[in-house]
């Protein structure tokens, strides 16, 4: 997949992975993997970017005697997911335009 397109979609996928329940790094990767290839190292900058854009917040929870960071979506993050729905309609229009038959080609 085109790298730019993928970057944008991954941001949305990360938000989608935490939209119902707060989640942590390992689980976010596991949840996204069936749909898109995502590595541990790609997730990190996305989480940082979404955090600095106020789309998610981070908190630590003690787990098995160590700290685990959980990510919680913000209203702004939820809003981003709603915007994505609208954008997707535009994208399907573009898809139709790109893949249309060359019917007037003579």
């Amino acid at each position, binding site marked *: 997949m085109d790298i730019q397109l993928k*970057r944008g979609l991954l941001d949305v996928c990360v938000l989608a992975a935490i939209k119902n329940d707060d989640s*942590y790094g390992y689980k976010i*990767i596991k949840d996204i993997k069936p749909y898109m290839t995502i*590595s541990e*190292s790609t997730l990190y*900058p996305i989480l940082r970017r979404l955090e*600095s854009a106020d789309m998610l917040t981070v908190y630590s929870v003690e787990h098995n005697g160590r700290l685990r*960071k959980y990510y919680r979506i913000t209203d702004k993050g939820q809003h981003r997911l709603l915007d994505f729905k609208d954008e997707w309609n535009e994208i399907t229009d573009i898809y139709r335009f790109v893949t249309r038959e060359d019917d007037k080609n003579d």
Partner: protein
Amino acid sequence: MTKAEFIDQLKNMTAGLSGEEADKFIEYYSELIEDAMEEGMTEQEAVASLGTMEDIADYIKENNNAVNTQSFPAVTQYAPKPQPRKKLPVWAIVLIIIGFPIWFSLLCAAFSVYISVWAVILSLFASALAMGVGGIGMAVAAFFTGDFGMLMVVLGAGLLLIGIGILLAVGTVVLTKLYAKLTAIIVKAIGRQFKGA
């Protein structure tokens, strides 16, 4: 590679980052290793699942850039964080207060020059109008002179006056537009100064 070895290498790689940034990286990766081991991987497998050290180094570099420049991908749009306004140093404030009589009078002078140009434009409009009205008056009056020669002379002069009036009006409109544009540029430039560059 064991977790400890991996963390050691990570520490070397993040040496260029601030302490806080480096700590966040290390916490992030060690948490992933722990979680992978909890899911049943061996320590070696868990470390291997994170990819090669070269890849991680690339990502660290990239992430460092991303955090510094706040460069976001084209598809996702975020509102930029408002830049905190820079505070003026004390000496600058003192200088502004002491220099008040100088810069304030200069400001007044500049402003009066600016206003006087508008006055010139206004007077040009007034003379164009006067010429037009006067010309029309003359042209009409020409028909009441009762003498053909006089009619021609006065009518001609009247029409000439109307013509000059129209040309002057057109010229003044152009001048007004230019000056308004200049005003907009100056206002914008001043606005930028106040927004804090």
